[in-house]
């Protein structure tokens, strides 16, 4: 699964970026460049899937791809996919990650669920003491108040949670194997969970692949739970975990000053930041703030020209576009590309 995901990302970034760009996407790097790449190349689902991915693991995969003649990497890190690689990428299944909106928060959801299930399981067995699966005090405090809010001592919560989980999982467009995987990361009284190694051995795949299958299932589950009103308990556990503000903090500050009427230069002076940094923020705004208009910076005709050039040359590379449209600045080009075709 890891390799398939990498192939898909490389395919989207083909010839336009370095291989490191793909690594930053998976790690969820919060830099202007990566955030813009996400929008330009439609990489939302992969963002921040593996915040702890070691660079060596990534590099090993790239090396393997080169051996397979799937891609070629230049000295500079820029790469292009070879025919075989493109074919392989075509054969990969469609994934349903939603990294952009969860950014690792799926693990918070699962930590809550794990501790709730573990508590209820011990209550069912009338065993009062156990060692909590989550040591994180904020998770523990959250679960404690959840259990109290739902009067768990009355003993009905088990049935309610069982019904919700069974019903949401039943119709979830995920393989039975993946559902099993999720259930075996939970533990209860005399029912220890299985380690990643044990699960991967059983599924005959790598640990990373098992972890990715788990993350994908959680993303699908979370979106289902949050869209419907049929799962109040799970919905509560998922509360506040879907990211709403999509801008970086710094871009947000710039946006606030812009709304007050300051110019790019003025914002740069106030914030003591380079003009290019402020421009990055505007590009970010163009990408993720639907109400932001690029009109003050680029005319409609100019935008039209950029799109035509991009189609003509089959690229989003600024350097090539700039050569074709010499009278436009890099900043203008980036704004147009970020805003997307209207």
């Amino acid at each position, binding site marked *: 699964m890891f390799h398939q995901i990498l192939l898909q990302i490389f395919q989207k970034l083909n010839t336009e970026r370095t291989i490191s760009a793909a690594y930053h996407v998976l790690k969820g790097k919060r830099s202007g460049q990566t955030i813009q790449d996400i929008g330009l190349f439609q990489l939302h689902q992969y963002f921040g899937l593996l915040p702890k991915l070691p660079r060596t693991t990534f590099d090993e995969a790239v090396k393997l791809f080169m051996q397979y003649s799937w891609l070629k990497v230049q000295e500079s890190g820029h790469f292009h996919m070879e025919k075989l690689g493109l074919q392989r990428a075509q054969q990969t299944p469609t994934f349903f990650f939603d990294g952009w909106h969860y950014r690792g928060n799926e693990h918070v959801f699962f930590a809550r669920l*794990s501790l709730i*299930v573990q508590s*209820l*399981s011990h209550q*069912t*067995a009338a065993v*009062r*003491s156990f*060692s*909590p*699966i989550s*040591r*994180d*005090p904020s998770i523990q405090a959250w679960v404690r108040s959840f259990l109290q809010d739902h009067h768990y001592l009355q003993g009905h919560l*088990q*049935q309610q*949670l*069982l019904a919700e*989980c*069974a019903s949401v*999982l039943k119709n979830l467009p995920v393989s*039975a194997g993946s*559902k*099993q995987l*999720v*259930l*075996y*990361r*939970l*533990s*209860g*009284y*005399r*029912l*220890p*969970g*299985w*380690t*990643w*190694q*044990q699960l991967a*051995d*059983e599924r005959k795949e790598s640990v990373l692949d098992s972890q990715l299958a788990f993350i994908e299932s959680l993303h699908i589950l979370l979106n289902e739970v949050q869209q419907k009103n049929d799962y109040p308990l799970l919905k509560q556990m998922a509360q506040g975990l879907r990211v709403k503000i999509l801008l970086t903090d710094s871009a947000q500050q710039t946006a606030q000053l812009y709304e007050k009427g300051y110019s790019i230069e003025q914002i740069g002076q106030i914030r003591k930041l380079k003009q290019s940094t402020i421009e990055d923020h505007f590009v970010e705004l163009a990408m993720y703030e639907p109400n932001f208009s690029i009109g003050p910076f680029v005319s409609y005709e100019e935008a039209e020209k950029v799109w035509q050039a991009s189609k003509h040359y089959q690229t989003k590379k600024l350097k090539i576009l700039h050569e074709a449209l010499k009278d436009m600045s890099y900043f203008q080009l980036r704004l147009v590309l970020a805003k997307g075709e209207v």
Partner: protein
Amino acid sequence: MELEELLYKHFGYSSFRPGQREVIEAILQEKDVMALLPTGMGKSLCYQLPAYILQKPVLIVSPLLSLMQDQVEELKRFGEKRVVALNSFLSITEKRNVLHYLEQYRFIFTSPEMLLQQQVQEKLAQMKLGLIVVDEAHCISQWGFDFRPDYLRIGEWLSRLNRPPLLALSATATSKVMQDIRETLSLQAPFEFMYNVDRPNIHLGRIVLGDKADKASWLMRHVKETAGPGILYVSSRKRAQQYSEAFLQAGIRTAAYHAGYGAEDRQFIQQQFIDGELDWIVATNAFGMGINKQDIHQVIHESMPANIANYMQEIGRAGRDGESALAILLYSDGDEELAKFVVTGDLPTPQHVDRYQELLSQQVLPAQMLKNGELGETAFRVLDYWMQQETTEQVRARLNHLALEKYRAVDEMLKIIKTKDCIREHLVGYFGQKLQKKPENCCENCGIHYDEIKKVRLNEEKKIEMVLWESRLQQLLLGN
């Protein structure tokens, strides 16, 4: 009320375990106490019960966050609400709240790092504490100089404080370590209790083999023929992984265990082991913190332990149920070289000292070394502490001395392995005690009839199979 009645009232136990009463009585007489009690033998009760009698807050300094959390959970299970962990997990607001109401807690757990913060020190100085507990006190010495420099600073702080009685707790300590504890904490004519280190039901085997490959084939045969539950200690994560895979292939229910796994995975393995779903655990020395399984039948060392104290602690996990248990140490010529390499692996080197100095002169924060991955976190902590205290030359000499000390500890372990006399007598003597009586099948040199202790491995144990997700869900929430 009598101590026994209080014990029953607060904790539901009807009698004390060895040493608890003596230690508690000394604390109540306002004496400083040093108590050496093995893990799982009610060490914490020595301060838990006095807290209810003293009616003043008890401050417990604990070096490991996970251990602290264990103790907090344990007290909460006994229904105690006035317990708090003052550590780096708290947000700024939470910390402010905790500090504001600090005197209202009965048990205040904290870390050495936290104790060094000025606002914490100021608050504590205003309070009337009933008792200060230094848990895992051997960290001051055994690993202390290198691993926990902050523990040394506690000594400085304690000497300034107008302090209540102090209780130093540890599971293992040699007389040398005890001396370090006494001095660093400035204990005043302390009452000292040390448990009997001898565990007569653990039979001490030692098997000399040609090389690594011989060990591997000996181990394969051994685990196929004899029964667990057992722990196999190895020297590296990689080796743990390899053995675990080999055992699994042979149909033996095994898991590797080391610090490279996430917290959940580690708990899953411990739970599987306790629930009898695993027969062998192949572990680096990360395994053991907090594990409490009574019926471990074998502990095998594939490679040499770093020192005698570690060895005792590791084999001490066997036979807690009182049944006969086996501790077997495998040795091949030259194993001590690997052990020496491993024990000094996390010490800073003279090059690190130079680099630290170089960064300082360039007005760069030395912590940059850590960020660059030039050395490990513990190594940096050691280096950073001593570089602030001493000159470069002194630090170099100190690091050299530390390495030599660690080599010496390996050599002491080697002596135990090489001895032709009674191994048990040597071990017990090392801790300054005298062996009362040799059990049957005492040790390799006194003679062990392995057949009398080994249990034959019965038919293939049932491998746990996965069930469908629907059934698993049902089991988890409604029981079987």
